[in-house]
């Protein structure tokens, strides 16, 4: 490992030597990269970024599976480097609402395989005698929590990287990036004040400076520096009797959005409760201009006033120690993104350029490992779809958007965030041509990938009364269960099943592929056979080499050399990157992004044919337009293209039209449907109730890198002759017995211990007869991947992967929700639809 010679060339350049860059260097070396340059504009071991001032504690339990697993894996790594102290951590509750939230914490702990339990006030007092127990109602204990030393870990990882590749790591501190050289859409070199280095690949791991580096390459990493206020108080005589850095659990005072943690004889007090203070990255000072470090500007006193009062209330004995004073106080700068998750993965407009940014101490080692896996072999062991930098592609990268969402999201950091909670700022941003019509109909819009999508329509309220009898037992009384939900969704569902509904726009990603090599190319991308007749559609998994899911989507053949790929809105940015990066250099394949040029209107239900036929020039009969086929049609004045398929299990079409004619399309269908009482139907039906009854899988819920098509019950394509990514693993998985099989379950009894009827929302653990969380042979916990009511089957439905001994229809199990356990029954093992199992409706 040399730091004096600046190389002219390197296989891999990592920009940023904080905890993230060091972890990347180590794991890339371990994964086989042999010539790595790690640079930072600051000195080592602390180059002046957020790593240098973090409070360094790791609380593993998060409601996000991805984040929990990343933190667990990071703790293992810190521990392996002898830089972890297992102190445990306690989240205390001052309110009843928070106690309920802590029960949900226990639920998440169980679902993600991390220990965690509720504590009484007395138990807290015993573990942390300095907490003022008069003001708390209880707590959540995470025994696996602890603190780390990220600077020391960085040193260990640099040394290990260098060992792993026999001196192949060059470390260059005090090296500032001046420019990024991009040619023909490919990263070529990094220009610095120590020289220019040619690079095969470059990772931006520059923390809050990452957007500036990305900008030099003409791409965007959407994050903003934000202040996290932190002070250190000491010396505290109470701690003098204890050796080492930390002898008491870290305390998170959740309701005040603060934490208090011992650090030697000091107490570190940190806050996320203050008003959001966002910085412009250009205002962050240089190292020379900073008294402490660039990311440690002086504390903004007035913003910290309430935090002081709250800290004095929760740990008065320590803070009122007559010897103790505030020895250190900062506005610590860290990276905040529009949704609070990191920004990882390939920056798709520049080949060879990667983002590894907005990563906090608690997940950094695991993220370095996972991104290194992604870079070197195309997939990571821990699925990173929630952190994919491409999730904001084409809509969420502006400074205004980032600032608005960061401002809003900062206040959610220790908040009680409902799983369906909607963002309020920067809306509406992406609207379909149906938006104004839907708004007039009282649409309650939810956002997905920036798109405004109606979740339900207030104008359909009459349907709740109409289907009163069918909805008996399915209405939600509990406020939490019914937050961001409406019984109108169930009414819309039943109306669609009985008559007809119009749904759209779903916010799909739409990509056309054209060229003489397009068949060969798409064959390599998809499990399903792609070389079908023109006019046919193929629903297919898209896999990584490990046989896990990258995506699932529909391909339609529009011509001999022309296909259209339709994918879910949330996955569109990532799928675009995946498809784009796999087009061979010498292949005649062009990708044309139609996402913003085509809108989609679904017309589904028993009367769909009558409605559509009445305004369409073409013959829409079963014979002329068979199921799973696609054709060009003209609806009224609008030239469109339609696929006969359905994600809600009904007869009907997805009609695609130019955005500019979308409103005309909406009006034409709405008018034609009047005679059939056509109703606008929301995504509550499309994404949940209709889908769940049909057992349709959703990427990011059921379908992840961690599961195979065999386990998901999506092997109906068999193993085709053509090679495709993941073929070997896919074929093996079919041969082997599933470690777990995706099942549809129903809730037998909704009554909680207090007698209230409760409805699970997703991510709850599945327990066996004795109340233990079910774990499969691969160590994966069984949990609810999706939850939703099926009004046509009269049951609340759950999907979950279950090991073979439990994946039996009729098997009785339990689900834990908000501290209570509820009996459930396996209705379907595999992908057979619970509703209309033979798909007669779609084929009618």
């Amino acid at each position: 490992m040399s730091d004096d010679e600046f190389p002219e060339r390197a296989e891999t350049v990592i920009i940023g030597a904080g905890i993230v860059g060091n972890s990347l260097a180590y794991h890339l070396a371990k994964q086989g990269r042999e010539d790595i340059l790690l640079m930072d504009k600051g000195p080592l071991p602390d180059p002046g970024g957020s790593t240098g001032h973090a409070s360094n504690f790791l609380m593993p339990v998060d409601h996000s599976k991805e984040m929990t697993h990343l933190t667990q894996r990071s703790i293992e790594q810190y521990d392996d480097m002898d830089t972890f102290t297992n102190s445990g951590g306690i989240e205390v509750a001052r309110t009843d609402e928070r106690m309920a939230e802590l029960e949900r914490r226990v639920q998440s702990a169980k679902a993600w395989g991390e220990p965690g339990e509720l504590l009484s006030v007395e138990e807290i007092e015993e573990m942390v005698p300095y907490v003022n127990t008069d003001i708390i109602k209880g707590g959540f204990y995470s025994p696996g929590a602890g603190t780390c030393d990220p600077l020391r870990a960085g040193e260990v990882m640099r040394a290990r990287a260098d060992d792993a590749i026999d001196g192949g790591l060059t470390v260059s501190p005090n090296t500032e990036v001046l420019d990024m050289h991009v040619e023909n859409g490919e990263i070529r070199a990094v220009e610095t004040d120590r020289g220019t280095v040619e690079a095969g690949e470059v990772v931006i791991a520059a923390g809050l400076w990452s957007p500036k580096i990305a900008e030099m390459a003409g791409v965007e990493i959407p994050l903003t520096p934000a202040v996290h206020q932190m002070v250190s108080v000491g010396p505290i005589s109470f701690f003098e009797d204890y050796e080492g850095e930390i002898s008491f659990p870290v305390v998170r005072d959740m309701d005040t959005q603060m934490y208090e943690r011992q650090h030697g004889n000091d107490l570190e007090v940190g806050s996320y409760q203050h008003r959001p203070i966002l910085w412009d990255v250009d205002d962050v000072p240089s190292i020379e201009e900073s008294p402490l470090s660039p990311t440690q500007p002086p504390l903004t006193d007035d913003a910290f006033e309430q935090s002081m009062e709250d800290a004095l209330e929760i740990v008065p004995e320590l803070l009122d120690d007559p010897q103790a004073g505030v020895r250190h106080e900062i506005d610590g700068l860290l990276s905040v993104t529009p949704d609070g998750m990191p920004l990882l993965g390939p920056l798709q407009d520049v080949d060879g350029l990667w983002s590894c940014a907005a990563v906090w101490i608690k997940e950094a080692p695991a993220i370095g490992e996972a991104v290194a896996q992604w870079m070197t072999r195309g997939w990571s062991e821990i699925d990173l779809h929630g952190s994919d930098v491409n999730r904001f592609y084409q809509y969420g990268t502006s400074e205004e958007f980032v600032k608005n969402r960061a401002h809003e999201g900062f206040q959610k950091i220790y908040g009680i965030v409902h799983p369906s909670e909607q963002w309020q700022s920067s809306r509406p941003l992406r609207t379909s041509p149906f938006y104004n019509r839907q708004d007039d109909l009282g649409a309650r819009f939810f956002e997905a990938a920036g798109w405004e999508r109606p979740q339900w329509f207030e104008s359909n309220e009459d349907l709740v009364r109409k289907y009163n009898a069918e909805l008996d037992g399915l209405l939600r009384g509990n406020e939490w269960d019914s937050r961001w939900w409406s019984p109108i969704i169930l009414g819309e569902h039943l109306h669609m099943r009985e008559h007809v509904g119009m749904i759209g726009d779903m916010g799909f990603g739409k990509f056309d592929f054209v060229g003489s090599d397009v068949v060969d190319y798409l064959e390599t991308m998809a499990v399903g056979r792609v070389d079908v007749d023109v006019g046919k559609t193929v629903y297919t998994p898209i896999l990584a080499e490990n046989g896990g899911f990258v995506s699932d989507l529909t391909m339609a053949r529009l011509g001999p050399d022309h296909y259209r790929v339709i994918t879910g809105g949330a996955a569109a940015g990532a799928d675009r990157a995946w498809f784009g990066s796999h087009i061979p250099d010498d292949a005649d394949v062009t990708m044309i992004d139609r996402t913003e040029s085509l809108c989609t209107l679904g017309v589904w239900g028993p009367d769909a044919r009558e409605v559509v036929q009445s305004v369409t020039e073409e013959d829409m009969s079963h014979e002329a337009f068979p199921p799973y086929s696609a054709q060009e049609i003209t609806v009224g004045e609008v030239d469109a293209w339609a696929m006969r398929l359905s994600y809600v299990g009904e007869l009907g079409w997805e009609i695609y039209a130019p955005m500019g004619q979308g409103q005309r399309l909406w009006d034409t269908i709405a008018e034609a449907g009047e005679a059939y009482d056509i109703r606008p139907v929301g995504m509550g039906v499309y994404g949940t109730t209709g889908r769940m009854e049909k057992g349709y899988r959703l990427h990011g819920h059921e379908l992840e890198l961690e599961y195979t098509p065999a386990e998901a019950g999506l092997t109906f394509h068999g193993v085709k002759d053509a090679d495709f990514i993941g073929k070997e693993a896919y074929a093996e998985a079919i041969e082997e017995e599933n470690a777990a099989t995706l099942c549809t379950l129903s809730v037998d009894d909704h009554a909680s211990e207090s007698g209230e009827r409760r409805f699970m929302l997703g991510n709850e653990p599945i327990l066996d007869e004795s109340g233990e969380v079910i774990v499969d042979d691969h160590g994966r916990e069984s949990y609810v991947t999706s939850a939703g009511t099926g009004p046509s089957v009269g049951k609340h439905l759950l999907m979950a992967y279950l090991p073979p001994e439990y994946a039996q229809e009729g098997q009785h199990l339990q689900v834990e929700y908000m501290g209570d356990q509820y009996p459930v029954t396996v209705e379907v093992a595999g992908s057979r639809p619970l509703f209309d199992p033979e798909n007669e409706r779609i084929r009618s």
Partner: protein
Amino acid sequence: MNVLACVKRVPNTGAKIVLTDDNQRIDASNLGFTMSPHEECAIEEAIQQVEAHGGSAHVLTLGPEDATEQLRTGLAMQADEATLLETDGAEWGPRATADAIANAVRDLADDGTEFDLLLFGTESADAANYQVGVRVARKLGRPCVTGIKSLDVEDGTAIAGREVSGGEEIYEVDLPAVVTVKEGINEPRYASMRAKMQARKQELDHLEPAGAAGGGTFEKVRLEAPETDDSAAEVLGDGPDAVPEIVEVLESEVEVL
């Protein structure tokens, strides 16, 4: 015994100094503000003397509204009261500053607060004129000792020690007196969180300073930031193996061998 500590709001100088475009001021947006270390000791000394002898400790500054930040630091350290001689932010020279402080001391005396001891830092951290304490003493007709690193008060007499080469000079002055202190006289405390919080809520006296900005015999033309040496340190080697390299550097670069 009532003690007054006088302080000045100055930019924190712990990093590279950036000047405003007109070269008239330090751009403190990244630096933040503080007071000189000597003055922090003056406040600490005032508080300790009051803790030992009773009475009350006051802290005073002449400056803009923002300078209340430094007064609150004094209050958080447990000073009892604070007074701002509020300016519009224009720079006051040492003579004008001293006149205004002396006037304020007289006004406060008229209102019933007689100060037995006026403490200053020996010099400010930015201008380092070494003048204000001495001028205030002269103006008020009180004895003054400067550069003090130890201070005891007994029976109306201050015993003040000044470090000199090879020893210490001890002065006895009758109170009321003016003493300018140096860093090292004591170890200034860190304010407790509760005291900081209370200091934020405490009322401050705002007085209009007598006189006007300027008032010096010098005119400031512009500021210049000194050149900084930003070359990186270089490790020449480890242990005895490093000797040849070190000799080479001492011979050819430093030219001392």
